[in-house]
């Protein structure tokens, strides 16, 4: 039995050390007793030489207790680390010195301590809150020993930024004494910042060293020392550290809880600008007390292990010459890639703007907007020729440049698809600015999370976007895409309008703005996942990868320059000018793809004599539903379409057949892909028909330049690490292609998982390859069922359930503990159920019998719901994780809630 002093703290770690002080705050010859949590003696007793030392520094008003998870993980690791977590003087269980210790003293104190401990070998500093600053201070003064820095919610208090508002209040003389020392309010407020709330015994442990007002003097002094302006005594030290870390050449890991009222995302952005090499992970939903809210030990030691083995992963800011130095190529057949270079970045590169530049004298239409932004209804389409588009892009680039937009800056575009969006995209690409494209399909909360996560320096948007920006306090300089009155500009904090940018440019268009082409391997765009599987994730593409996406589309679908296409699917829509294709944006509410009508599609097609249509399943559903409204000429225009592409989610064959009747001369294709790789495979309607029924949805064969493999699954539902291309093996789907994303943005943990098979992107989907080399998607890795009879995928069972006449849509989920789950079908019926309920016995028996006959799965239950929860963007991806939780609860007994 391990003796614990406090919950999670082993008694052997607690020690006291007498340290002679050299701090200015103390008289000469002073010695103070420090309290530490230190697993060094324990490791020594076991005869273990640690890999190095983590020097952990808490902030205010916590103590070394904050780092207990690191101590436990470091001690029990295969290759243990020593962890020295200090209680700063006047804090925790260290001595109360009776002095007022300032930042400079505290950095000196830490140095005194490490000298006394005689720390040898590499040191990784770890800091939280103001402890982050102090640990960085130590780092800048001990560069010889420094191996890496790890930071969690901290600030280096950059010039130009004010002290966080809650701290300003705490600093007010009338407040701060009462708030920090006299009462324990500051402690309680800080402890209350945990998400979810701290357990009672943990809260008590945090409070333990600060029981009386006398014990809390350090807490008060700590707050009082925070330098609010250059006149403050600690200002000099602060700026010294803040500037000093720019020259730290060690790896850095920043773990961040965004729900922090003190150290908000802007301090993260400041930090990343000073430590551009940092790997970052933002834990959506976690807050200030990150080490309490999230597991930090696993990523910290995972990251340190990777440093040791030399595999570097990048999830932070743009830095050239990055990533995967030892990534091997996925298959030996590849001649382009070498063992020292990533798969991406080896083909020939043609910039995204090359086509536009070549056509700068072309007066034929480049972009057509069926419902121009800011126009009166019924105004009719607006068209820009290639020459006009090129000129607009140049002027916009120059205008943006004139207000400070430069290469590497993130520019969030909150503008509906159309001419403005297209022009802005290419202007940003031209400048080397990074476009951040988050669509309204994420919902207000999701969109807000996405924007705050990406932290754009500029936001260009329509008025509605600025309403939200004001409400949710989105960062960035605001630029209105439409004309805006002065009062509104003031209200929304809008600094510029696109109109101004277009007009205010003197001299020749383009000359001032852009002199060099952007670096092919610099960041170009950040797109967002749909958020159907948790918070939306930012996905970063470089210029080379965007260009590869363009080339893949071109090669797979034989899109010639001069093709005219209807751009009804967002990510592909932005590629039109790069492809050299005339693109037309149909009249529809872009926040809801299902508002595209057959007539609107036909009008758009007619406007440019389109031969290609890009759409989404939700849009096509409505197109089929509104087909009766088509006029003769409109039907004629659709008859000219030669290629129709629907991306986003699989489409059932019957719907495709109906679409085919509307576009009788078109080849229908439904590529499979994800925000991280668009597209991966392709299949046509004919191929869907010839593939027939199988385990999952047949999504066809890899597109030009792409490779697909799977990794086998463990009985617990986790995925192994070896790529397999053998037919018939169900596993997690892997993709390798030049157009796979560069990385997830500020999600180091997610990124390292997605790349853990060198040279491949883990999709999180499960499926198998068949004898013909076709991929069958069987569902999401997170949605597989781990039954007593092995791992099962849901899609085939869902298709079987949907073949029962009353069943409209079905989701099959696992209920119960991993490895012993039972399958449960949650179904939407026709007519719809009024409320969630178990299916009537006869329907239940019918569904069970059908599913068992097709797949061998024995459904424990069939539950009816009025509507299955789906994502907003595609209106098709069912949130099975939430459903599984709901079903488990419903079947545990008690009342049935809503899914």
């Amino acid at each position, binding site marked *: 039995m391990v003796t614990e002093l406090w919950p999670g703290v082993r008694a052997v770690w607690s020690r006291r050390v007498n340290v002679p002080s050299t701090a200015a705050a103390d008289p000469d010859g002073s010695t103070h007793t420090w309290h530490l949590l230190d697993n060094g003696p324990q490791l020594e007793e076991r005869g273990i030489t640690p890999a190095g030392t983590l020097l952990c520094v808490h902030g205010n008003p916590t103590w070394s207790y904050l780092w207990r998870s690191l101590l436990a993980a470091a001690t029990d690791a295969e290759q243990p680390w020593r962890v020295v977590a200090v209680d700063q003087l006047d804090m925790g269980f260290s001595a109360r010195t009776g002095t007022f210790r300032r930042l400079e003293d505290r950095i000196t104190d830490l140095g005194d301590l490490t000298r006394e401990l005689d720390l040898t070998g590499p040191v990784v500093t770890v800091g939280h809150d103001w402890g982050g600053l102090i640990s960085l201070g130590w780092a800048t003064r001990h560069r010889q020993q420094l191996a890496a820095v790890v930071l969690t919610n901290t600030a280096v208090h950059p010039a130009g930024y004010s002290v966080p508002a809650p701290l300003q209040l705490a600093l007010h003389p009338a407040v701060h004494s009462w708030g920090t020392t006299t009462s324990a309010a500051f402690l309680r407020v800080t402890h209350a910042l945990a998400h979810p709330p701290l357990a009672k015994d943990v809260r008590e442990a945090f409070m333990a060293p600060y029981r009386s007002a006398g014990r809390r003097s350090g807490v008060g002094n700590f707050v009082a020392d925070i330098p609010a302006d250059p006149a403050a005594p600690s200002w000099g030290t602060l700026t010294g550290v803040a500037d000093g870390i720019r020259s730290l050449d060690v790896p850095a890991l920043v773990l961040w809880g965004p729900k922090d009222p003190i150290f908000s995302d802007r301090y993260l952005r400041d930090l990343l600008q000073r430590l551009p090499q940092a790997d970052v992970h933002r834990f959506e939903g976690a807050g200030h007390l990150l080490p309490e809210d999230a597991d930090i030990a696993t990523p910290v030691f995972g990251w340190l292990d990777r440093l040791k083995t030399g595999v570097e992963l990048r999830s932070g800011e743009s830095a050239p010459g990055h990533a995967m130095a030892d990534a091997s190529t996925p298959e030996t057949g590849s001649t382009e890639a070498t063992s020292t270079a990533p798969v991406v970045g080896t083909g020939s590169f043609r910039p995204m703007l090359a086509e536009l530049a070549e056509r700068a004298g072309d007066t034929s239409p480049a972009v057509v907007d069926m419902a121009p932004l800011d126009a009166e209804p019924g105004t009719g389409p607006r068209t820009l020729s290639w020459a006009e588009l090129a000129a607009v892009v140049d002027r916009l680039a120059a205008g943006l440049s004139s207000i400070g937009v430069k290469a590497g800056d993130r520019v969030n575009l909150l503008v509906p698809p159309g001419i403005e969006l297209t022009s802005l995209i290419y202007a940003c690409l031209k400048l080397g600015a990074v476009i951040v494209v988050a669509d309204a399909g994420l919902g207000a909360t999701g969109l807000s999370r996405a924007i705050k996560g990406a932290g754009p320096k500029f936001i260009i948007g329509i008025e509605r976007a600025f309403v939200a920006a004001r409400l949710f306090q989105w960062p960035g300089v605001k630029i209105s895409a439409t004309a805006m009155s002065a009062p509104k500009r003031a209200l929304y904090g809008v600094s510029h309008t696109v109109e101004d940018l277009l007009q205010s440019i003197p001299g020749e268009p383009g000359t001032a703005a852009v002199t060099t082409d952007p670096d092919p391997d610099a960041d170009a765009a950040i797109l967002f996942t749909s958020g159907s599987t948790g918070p939306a994730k930012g996905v970063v593409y470089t210029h080379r990868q965007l260009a590869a996406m363009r080339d893949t589309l071109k090669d797979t679908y034989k899109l010639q320059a001069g093709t005219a296409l209807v751009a009804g699917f967002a990510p592909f829509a932005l590629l039109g000018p790069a492809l050299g294709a005339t693109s037309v944006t149909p009249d529809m509410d872009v926040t809801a793809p299902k508002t595209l009508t057959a007539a609107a599609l036909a009008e758009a097609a007619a406007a440019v004599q389109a031969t290609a249509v890009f759409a989404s399943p939700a849009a096509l559903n409505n197109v089929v539903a509104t087909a009766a409204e088509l006029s003769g000429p409109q039907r004629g225009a659709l008859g000219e379409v030669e290629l129709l592409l629907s991306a986003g989610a699989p489409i059932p064959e019957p719907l495709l057949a109906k679409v085919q009747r509307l576009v009788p001369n078109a080849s229908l294709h439904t590529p499979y892909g994800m925000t991280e790789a668009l597209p991966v495979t392709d299949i046509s309607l004919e191929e869907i028909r010839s593939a027939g029924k199988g385990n999952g949805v047949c999504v066809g064969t890899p597109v030009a330049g792409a490779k697909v493999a799977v990794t086998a699954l463990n009985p617990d539902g986790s995925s192994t690490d070896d790529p397999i291309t053998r037919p018939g093996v169900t596993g997690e789907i892997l993709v390798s292609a030049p157009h796979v994303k560069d990385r997830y943005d500020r999600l180091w943990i997610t990124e390292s998982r997605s790349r853990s098979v060198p040279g491949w992107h883990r999709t999180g989907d499960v499926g198998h390859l068949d004898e013909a080399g076709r991929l069958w998607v069987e569902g999401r890795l997170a949605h597989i069922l781990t039954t*007593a009879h092995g791992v099962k995928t849901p899609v085939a069972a869902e298709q079987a359930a949907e073949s029962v006449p009353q069943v409209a849509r079905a989701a099959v989920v696992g*209920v*119960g*503990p991993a*490895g*012993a*789950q*039972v399958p449960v079908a949650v179904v939407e019926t026709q007519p719809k159920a009024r409320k969630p*309920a*178990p299916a009537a*016995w006869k329907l*239940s*028996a019918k569904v069970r*019998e059908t599913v068992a006959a097709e797949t061998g799965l*024995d459904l*424990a*239950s069939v539950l009816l719901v009025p509507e299955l929860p789906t994502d907003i963007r595609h209106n098709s991806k069912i949130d099975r994780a939430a459903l599984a939780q709901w079903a*488990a609860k*419903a*079947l*545990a*007994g*008690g*009342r*049935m809630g809503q899914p």
Partner: protein
Amino acid sequence: MSTGTAQGRNILVTGASGMLGGAVARLLMEQGHHVRTFQRRPAAFAQDGAQAETVQGSLTDELAVARAVTGVDAVVHLAAKVSFTGEWSDFVATNIEGTRALLKAARAAGVRDFVFVSSPSVAHFGTAIAGAGAGTADPERAHGNYARSKAAAELLALAEDSPAFRVAAVRPHVVWGPGDTQLVERVVARARAGRLPLLDHGTALIDSTYIDNAAAAIARTLERMDHAHGQALVVTNGQPRPVGELLAGICAAAGVRPPAWNVPGWLARGAGSVIERAWTAAGKRGLVRDEPPMTRFLAEQLSTAHWFDQRRTREVLDWSPAVSIEEGLDRLAEHYLGRSAVALNHHP
């Protein structure tokens, strides 16, 4: 491996007058064993012309118990007081002291193997069980006199396990089948009288065991004592179903209307406690003989999930159930209606 037919063993089955005990006795005879039954009332067991030897007596009668175990190689102990109500002292006498006496006598008589037939309720403490393992019996926390006394008896039995005297506990969960008076006939009778409510719409997922599977698992345990001794194994069909659906299936098989009215679980649990106390009091005064319409224990059983991870059981016994729930319901329908329920269950 010996299937038991090649060399018959002498096996004592207690509680053979019950549905499960009878099924076990008949199955063992079918497998070629010499079966002796032990029960309070006179009874005869015959299977394929073979006649079971019977010893009449009570578990509380030391001499009768000694007679029963003389000359046997193995004991399957099913006899127990099974009731939702009753005085604790009665449960102690039969379930705990009776088991203690039988264990003692069996060991003294040189019996090699002892299978104690228990109940998953010995480790069910009123909260939902979803895919859990068997768990350890706990007389302190089990709910109701039956479960508490069985828990104590199971602990007694497993404590006796040794290489010379091998003891295993088998816990079949909600056993049902043709001729079942405990569950099936009560459900059917109440449904027919319109007195069968569903608790919380009957959504609680529960495991159950078709009678033939329960008997087979017990017989199989005797063959697998090398692996099974010292352990408690929950046995089920491994096909959990919402309780409402199981009851509806049973009603349909019996040709009665399935329950349609709903009672909130919390209300039934509360009412169950009251009824249970009143019934026990009335029973003492000779006013009632039947089981009460609702008890707290029953309400818990009908309104909280309890289904189990069967992986260990199946690995230890190297066995899986031969009769599915659906097939079991067909057989039940055949029993009641003299015709197959295929038309009922699986109409196209």
